[in-house]
């Protein structure tokens, strides 16, 4: 059949200039760049003292379609595994109970960090002037929303399947009384979203994500597996598949300011402050969760810290940037002291104050005590003997009327809260870096535990307004505080926190009342 002249012309043209059968996503990414517009006069709600250059790249060449497909594949695999195979295998109740309690803290706290990172990366999207950098930040905003849901889902899953759901469900209601909450808000909220935008990026991306997500989200999965938990590796390793892009965002933030004269003046101080801020909380809390919140140990926490924080983050990220003027953080020496001892200090205080927690803690058994002494020589004489004395005094028994916090006070071991990090510390028992120092400002006294936080407070005293539980509840009896702060299970009388992980001999509000512990602010005695 003859064809028309028009059809023939079209057919001939197509033969000469064939349209591509498909276009690779990276060609689309390149093509999309012709749609960029001028951001150099970007007006932002979140200014920075640095000048961010506007030619910075996004290292993975993301386009919306491939990003969505990639994240969808991650979610389908993760939720498919959890809701099908893992449920059928009863995986939600097969971990050691000590580890089941650790995940009450780890996943609930990480959820808060992810939630604040949504705002932090959106803030950076607003501040940046390079189109590709904005692209990277925007993908991070969406990632953080995914992560917030993933963390919540871990606790939701545990709530349904784990034999002790209290604390996995609705942990946040205890945030006023739990001494670990406020420090977590300092690193995960204030550090990420308050102040200079680039300083927030250094806190969130260059230190929080490039350094501490490796122990918090990767190494934790080794401990989880060793203790029978298959839920956490399934979710947390999926979370971390987005973190490499966030680390790259943080690195590109540094690239964007590398040639700015302001970087020569401010970058090293901002990096040191961010490193100290993040390590001051993560170092003791992660070490405590891993070593004291597990039955089966992978390796000493100080080795995990040495690998991921000192050798790899320090050498591969910070060390490599040395030729661009980035220096080793001066606080590193104190951070290493903390890596060795701070988690032991914190675990002792956490156990002494167990009724204020939303998780159950257990005393180290004989095998664990030997492990601690072998890996931290001197541990037994300093900490082990105290745990043994507390056990002999009946700290686990609700009929004993003994809560270890009483022992600390009776023996002159006052517990303070560091104003800047909000981490509790006991100067007379501490082997961490630092010592007690007290400042008076506007008629009030404030306690500090180390040089670096003290220096930050002296620079911006009005920034650190969070009250400690001792100031907040000064003069109040402990059972009243717990009832008021929602530290009870659904029966309205049994505490969520417990000093052991058995299903019997649970402490009630009446048991705590009988102990007669009264909260008092140690700063009033200075």
């Amino acid at each position, binding site marked *: 059949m003859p064809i028309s002249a028009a059809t023939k012309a079209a057919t001939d043209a197509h033969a000469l200039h064939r349209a591509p059968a498909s276009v*690779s996503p*990276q060609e689309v*990414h*390149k093509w999309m760049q012709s749609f960029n517009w001028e951001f150099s006069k970007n007006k932002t709600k979140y200014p920075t003292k640095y000048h961010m250059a506007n030619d*910075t790249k996004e*290292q*993975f*060449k993301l386009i919306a379609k*491939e*990003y969505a*497909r*990639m994240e969808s*594949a*991650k979610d389908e*695999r993760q939720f498919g595994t959890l809701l099908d195979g893992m449920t059928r295998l009863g995986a939600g109740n097969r971990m050691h109970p000590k580890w089941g309690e650790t995940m009450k803290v780890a996943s609930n706290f990480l959820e808060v960090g992810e939630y604040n990172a949504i705002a932090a990366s959106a803030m950076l999207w607003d501040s940046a002037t390079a189109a590709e950098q904005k692209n990277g930040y925007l993908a991070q905003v969406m990632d953080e929303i995914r992560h917030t849901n993933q963390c919540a889902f871990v606790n939701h899953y545990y709530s349904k399947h784990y034999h002790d759901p209290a604390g996995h469900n609705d942990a946040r209601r205890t945030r006023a009384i739990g001494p670990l909450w406020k420090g977590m808000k300092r690193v995960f909220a204030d550090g990420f979203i308050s102040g200079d935008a680039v300083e927030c990026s250094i806190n969130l991306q260059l230190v929080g994500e*490039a350094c501490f*997500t*490796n122990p918090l*989200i*990767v190494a934790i*999965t*080794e401990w989880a*597996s060793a203790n029978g938990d298959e839920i956490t*590796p399934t979710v947390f*390793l999926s979370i*971390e*598949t987005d*973190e*490499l892009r966030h*680390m*790259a965002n943080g*690195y*590109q933030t540094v*690239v964007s300011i*590398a040639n700015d004269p302001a970087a020569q003046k401010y970058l090293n101080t901002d990096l040191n402050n961010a490193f100290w801020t993040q390590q001051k909380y993560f170092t003791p809390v992660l070490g405590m969760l891993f070593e004291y919140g597990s039955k089966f140990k992978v*390796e000493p926490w*100080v080795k995990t810290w*040495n*690998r991921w924080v*000192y*050798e*790899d983050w*320090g*050498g*591969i*990220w*910070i*060390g*490599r*940037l040395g030729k*661009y003027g980035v220096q*080793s*953080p001066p606080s*590193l*020496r104190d951070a*290493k*002291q903390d890596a*060795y001892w701070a988690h032991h200090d914190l675990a002792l205080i956490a156990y002494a104050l167990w009724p204020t927690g939303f998780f159950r803690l257990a005393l180290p058994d004989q095998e664990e005590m030997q492990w601690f002494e072998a*890996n931290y*020589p001197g541990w037994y004489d300093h900490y082990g003997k105290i745990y043994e004395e507390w056990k002999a005094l009946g700290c686990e028994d609700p009929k004993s009327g003994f809560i270890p916090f009483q022992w600390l006070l009776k023996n002159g071991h006052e517990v303070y809260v560091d104003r800047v990090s909000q981490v509790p510390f006991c100067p007379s028992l501490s082997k961490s870096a630092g010592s007690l120092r007290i400042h008076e400002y506007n008629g009030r006294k404030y306690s500090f535990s180390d040089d670096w936080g003290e220096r930050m407070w002296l620079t911006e005293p009005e920034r650190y307004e969070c009250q400690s539980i001792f100031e907040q509840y000064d003069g109040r009896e402990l059972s009243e505080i717990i009832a008021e702060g929602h530290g009870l299970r659904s029966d309205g009388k049994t505490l969520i926190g417990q000093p052991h992980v058995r299903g019997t001999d649970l402490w009630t509000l009446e048991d705590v009342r009988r102990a007669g512990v009264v909260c008092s602010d140690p700063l009033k005695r200075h």
Partner: protein
Amino acid sequence: MSDNRYNSGIMEKNGADFANEFFAEENQVVHESDKVVLVLMKSDEIDAIVEDIILKEGVEINPTIVVEDRTGFWWIKANGKIEVNVADAAALLGKNYSIYDFLVNVSSTIGRAYTLGETFTITSELMGLDRKLVDVS
């Protein structure tokens, strides 16, 4: 024995020996390193890529590559850089497998990671500072 192993150097020491080196004066500052670390979440595809690409062609190109099984993930460390070509992976797996499919299971990187066409690279180079990041040609 490679010094890229998970437990090499100071990590082989225990107790007081570890503490002495950890607190040694020369270790109170960071030391520049040209190593890179790649953490791959285990999956059908990744297990095959590790076994048949990274541990074969990868190690031929860069003999410093060390791969260790850390239960839920493969931990990989090397000097300089590690590259994975996803066209090779697609041929191995017998299905379409793009750089974005590979990223589904890349759990962490220490170093500068980037993609270009069908190649994923993690390098100790300071991309964007020492060398420009480029687009596909």
